[in-house]
Each structure stands twice: as C-alpha cells, then as structure tokens.
C-alpha cells in the first residue's frame, strides 16, 4: 500500500492524525497534514485506510502497490 497526501485540499480537521497517528501528523504551524510514512507497515495499514476513508476533504490518496496483496 502506498500513500500520498494533497496539502492543497487538506482542511486540517485532524481525522488522519487521530485515526492513524503512526502514519499522519499535522504541521504545528498550519495544522495541515504531514505524511509520516508513505509505505506503512502492515500493522498500520488498516488505520491508514480508515484515515483515508474518514478524511473530510479527500486529501489522502491511497494506492494498493502492485503485488502487495492489499485488497
């Protein structure tokens, strides 16, 4: 699974930092998303997926890396 974020779209609601704190944080100055880990370990993938799902602005893009077996 690969992740990217679009800081232009981000509205800083913090749903990502709340649901997957190992993967996302917020910039202390502007509050916008900071991607800590673009290739999260297996243990954090479910949370990262959830974060992408609950992000209100569609700022988190999730790609299933070929061969990663993620569904």
């Amino acid at each position, binding site marked *: 699974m690969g992740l990217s974020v679009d800081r232009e779209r981000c509205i*800083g609601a913090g749903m990502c930092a*709340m649901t997957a704190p190992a993967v996302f944080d917020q910039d202390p100055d*502007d*509050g916008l998303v900071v991607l800590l880990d673009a290739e999260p370990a297996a243990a954090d993938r479910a949370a990262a997926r*959830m974060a992408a*799902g609950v992000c209100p*602005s*569609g700022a988190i893009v999730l790609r299933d890396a070929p061969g990663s077996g993620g569904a």
Partner: protein
Amino acid sequence: MSESLHTVAAMPTERRPGCPFDPPAELVEARGHGPIVRLTHPGGMPGWLITGYDLVRSVLADPRFSSRKDLLNVVDFEIPPAPPGEFLLMDDPEHSRYRKPLVGKFTVRRMRLLTERIEQVTAECLDAMAAAGSSADLVTAFAKPIPTIVICEILGVPYEDRASFQQQIDAFMGGEVGDEELIAAYTATQEYLARLVAAKRAHPTDDVLSELTDSDLTDEELKGISLILLAAGFDTTANMLALGTYALLRHPEQLAALREDPSLIDGAVEELLRYLSVAKTFMRTALEDVEVGGQLVEAGTTVVLSYNTANRDPERFTDPDVLDVRRPFDGHLAFSHGIHQCLGQQLARIEMRVAFRALLDRFPSLRLDVPAEEVPLRPETADIYGVKSLPVAWDEK
C-alpha cells in the same frame, strides 16, 4: 416518475414522545422512501431533503453545493450575506481565508496538550457538585461550564465575563426566546466581542484571539470568527455532555460496560456522537443543476441534509438505532464532512472523553432524579438538540 416522489411538507418540529434520542418520525419515514425526497421550505419554495448517509456525505463534499447564507432559498425574503468572519456560512475562497489561520491552533496535538487543563476544570466542576449535596442539575453544574471555561480560556475571554456571555449565547442558540430577545442577545454578544477584540489588539495576552490580531484579519472579521468559535465551542459540546449522560442513564447496560472498562471511552464518545447527532441538519444550495441520487436538483434550490437520519442509516450502520459503546468507529457525520467539517472536533472529543470518564468515576451511583420521561428536552427548532436540564442524584459517601 418524480410525481410519485414522497414529499415532506415541512421539517418536523417534534420528536416521537418517549423516544428523545431517535430522529423525528417523519424523517425516518422519509428515509424509507429513499435517501432523497422532496421537501417544501417554510417560504413555500420546493426543496429536497436528504436523509441517507452516502448522499449526505457526497453533497457535503461537492463544491457545486454552496454554504452561503445569502443563497438559501427557503424563506420569502432576502437573506443577507454572512457577516465578516462567520465562515461557516461562506464558500471558498472566503471560507478558507478565515479557516486557514485557525487550523494550526486546533490540531490533534495541541488539543492533547490541553488534556490536563480540561481534567482540572472538570474536577473543579465535580468538586463543586459534590460539595453542594446529593443532587444537581447536570446541565448547569457540569455540561455547560466545562466547555465554556475551556473555549473561553483558549480564546481569551476574561473569567468574570463568562457567565453573562454564556447566558447571551444561550438565548440566541437555545431556540426558546422570542425574536426581540434573540436580537437583543445577539447584539449584546456582538458588542461584547467588539470590545474584546479591541482590548486584545491593545494588550495582547496569551490566547488564540490575541494571536489572531497578528494576522491580516480586521477587527470586524475577528469578531465574527470569535462568535463562531465560542458558539460552536460550547453549545454543541454542552449538549453532547448532557444529552449523552441522559442517554447513558437510560441505557444502564451500556453505562455498566463503560464503567467496567474505561478504555471504551474513546469509542463510546464516537458512538454517542453518531447516535445523538445533536447538530441535526445543515443546508446547502445548488450552484448549478446537479443530479443527486437520481433526482435533478435545480440550480438555486436548497437541500436540507439530515445528519441524525444519515447517522442512523441502516445501509451504513448495523442496528443503527441501538446505542452500542463497543461499536467500532468507522466514520459518522456528527462533525459534518467536506471543507466545513468541524474545526474544533478534536477539542470536543477530548472534552467529552475527559468529562464523561470523570463523571462516572466520581459518582458511581449517578441516577436521574426525575422520572425519565420528565427530563425537559430542547425543542426540535433549536439548532442544537439537547436537554434543558438534567436533574440527577447520587448517594453521598
């Protein structure tokens, strides 16, 4: 086809008797006819009502729908645009011009740093409650003061002004006073905030409002922003705390589960947010013709989004009408969605987690002090649903 569409004549004004937590019956019935049905607005204009989770969410994320107050097509008179700073009722780019400088001040991290202070405030309220005897109105002793004190501290509203300030905001948000009183309260709040902004500009202190005087925002704009933050900052959380406690007291098995395993609190807060959806509805107006759920919403038409039916949508949640503090969190619309999603949600979450836990710890024998049906509810016409008072009692130790 569209002729046979279900129509809701007007937004319901009451809940089903005896069922204070469930959405009004007319809305649930409407949802049975599909996620989008026709609705007639108060001014007689045709509109739409959206009750289903997926559709509500997609409209909230759709830039073809506007939040602008002056575009609302619901009454037969012109609605003026939102005053400067009241960005909830604006679209981008205005909206994000106001929101942007605030975002960094309400991050998950910054809100976590406040936990200790919120714990202190909560403990003080509970101490005062305990000292006053074995019964109290939980609204005035607990639900209102905690979020009020916290948001006032964040913004920098002086301690001695809090009580009168809270009363005014109550008057114009509670849905219970006549027009005259409402306008008077609103005007008084505006005047108060104007003085406050001027004071912060002259003598900045260590708070968000003072920090904001450093930006390019005008005093008028800062006044509007403060109003939104204060109103949103306490009315919603206060009602979540009071109505949430009432809901737990009426679901003793859920309350017991939460007492037994305090680690359930985070999930329980999300579940209460979903189950109660105290911010019940929002409106959006179509900027162009948009197809929504197979219906054509014409440009200029206002749609009403029902959060409480969306958050109880059986297509989205298993047994949606059941309050289950163990339900795994996977999204609800209690804080809305899209670019307007609540800025203060992380603060609200921490306040609720801290406050509910401390309350249950402190008063193991907490119970209603009136028959459950007699707890006075806010009218459905209030923007934010809740209880007017919540008489509770406990055994003194």
